[in-house]
């Protein structure tokens, strides 16, 4: 095997793993994805996204997903007198791999945000090979009121962290479930234990400030043990 071919195959494998993890992530968040989309084999991936010389083409690696029924239900705020038919707070998600290899500046980020808002995506995930510049990160946070933009590094997606044996199961609570929890334990929001916004699991699940996540651990004495954390 040639040296250059080897480099491409290594890169392709890495991209394939990131591609798989991002699909698992999107599906774990509650979006609809077909099984064969999530569990694409390396050969299929190569056939679909590689150029003639074996190098992967990131420009073609993109997909969108619609939220499932249960997700829409979870993200719809309870109806009130003034707003009897509230709109769900989630929508179609757009995932794109960034072909840029040097460094990612304002213009690349702006293009992505524009694409998301023009096509009415409620959320967008940009997977990059290199880190963003600090101003590009600012673009991401400034526009996040309209569409939720997230960025992941390829190297962070090589393994799915939720599949690790030491990572307990995290379940996002809906607004009603959160209120029921606070009522049951007579708590104020701030009295819950906290989880940081930038925590890897919080990033995986796309937690926003104020959302509560239920953590289910196995316990030797109790079988299962649930704890709750508020995202800050």
């Amino acid at each position, binding site marked *: 095997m040639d040296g250059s071919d080897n480099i491409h195959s290594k890169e392709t494998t890495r991209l394939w793993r990131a591609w798989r993890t991002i699909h698992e992530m999107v599906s774990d968040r509650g979006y609809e994805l077909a099984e064969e989309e999530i569990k694409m084999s390396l050969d299929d991936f190569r056939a679909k996204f590689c150029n003639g010389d074996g190098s992967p083409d990131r420009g073609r690696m993109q997909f969108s997903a619609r939220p499932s029924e249960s997700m829409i239900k979870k993200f719809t705020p309870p109806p009130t007198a003034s707003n009897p038919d509230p709109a769900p707070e989630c929508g179609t998600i757009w995932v794109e791999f960034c072909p840029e290899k*040097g*460094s*990612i*500046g*304002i*213009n*690349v980020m702006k293009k992505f945000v524009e694409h998301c808002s023009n096509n009415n995506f409620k959320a967008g995930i940009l997977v990059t090979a290199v880190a963003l*510049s*600090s*101003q*590009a990160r*600012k*673009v991401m946070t*400034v526009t996040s009121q309209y569409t939720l933009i997230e960025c992941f590094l390829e190297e962070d997606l090589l393994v799915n962290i939720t599949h690790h044996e030491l990572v307990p199961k995290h379940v996002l609570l809906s607004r009603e479930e959160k209120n029921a929890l606070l009522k049951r334990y007579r708590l104020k929001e701030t009295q819950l234990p906290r989880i940081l916004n930038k925590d890897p699991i919080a990033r995986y699940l796309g937690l926003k400030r104020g959302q509560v996540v239920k953590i289910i651990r196995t316990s030797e004495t109790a079988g299962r043990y649930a704890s709750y954390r508020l995202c800050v």
Partner: protein
Amino acid sequence: MSNPTADIITERRPTPKSILKKRPPSPPSTPFTEPEPITGLTPSQATRILQLARTELIKPSIPLSTFELLSSLPQESSSAPSSFDVSTFLSQIKDFSPSEYLDLIEERNCLNKCGYTLCPNPKRNIPGEFKIHKRGVAKTADLNKWCSDRCAVKALYIKVQLDNPTYVWKQGQMVVKVELKEEEETQTTTPAKSAGEEEKLSKDMTKLDLNKNNKTDEEKKVRQMVGALAIERNRMSGTKVEVNIKEKETTQVAQAPTAVKPEDAHLIVEGYNSASKGKKPARDEDDSDDDDDDDPFPTVRLEVINMGKSQS
């Protein structure tokens, strides 16, 4: 602290002796009030002060559009920046904080431009992680921010002014004074000057006719002596060889050998660049077809190499 249940117990039984240390009686508990603020401000006052600080005292961060504007400069790709570019740059840069200026450099590098805002060149691309530089070892990541060392100096000159700002009064406001580094006169003017001088010198040299002016008496004497010596030597050896000494025509002034890049000077050993390993000098490259060297079968060997390549 007295406790209602404790009171009931004392009525029934003899008082149990406490094992705890006796404490002075605690002051009567007061109903819950707002905690006394340390600064002597009520919460509403504190909020107002914070709001004031946020709106007026803290400098707002630079808008993204400014970054985009400055990373698109200069508009014309000429060597000298236009006065419009300079004035835009200077008027915008005075509001920058040092870290925001570094962000601007990063942003320009993202567009593959030199980090100095008024430079139209692309940034340089030195391979590897470290590089031996004039003042020691430098990270290539730092060197690759600029197109040249001169641009680095100019850009960091601005950074220093933002780090330690000098304020001037302008229309009733304190404004950071920022100025560009002055172009070094010698660097810009010497090439033109020296080119002119060189031409003149070479003309003078060509005008100089060595044969006309050197027929002074002393030289005649020297020639006679040399001639006598040659005759004597010829007698000794017995053979006569005709030697014609010709002056080469002078077309230009001899130039001192220079390194290709001044930053590579440390790699050069007696004119040989050790960095270009295995690379032959340019004149040797088209030597492959003339056969006046000692090697008997150069062409045959080449064919063998080519055959080996085509087979694999």
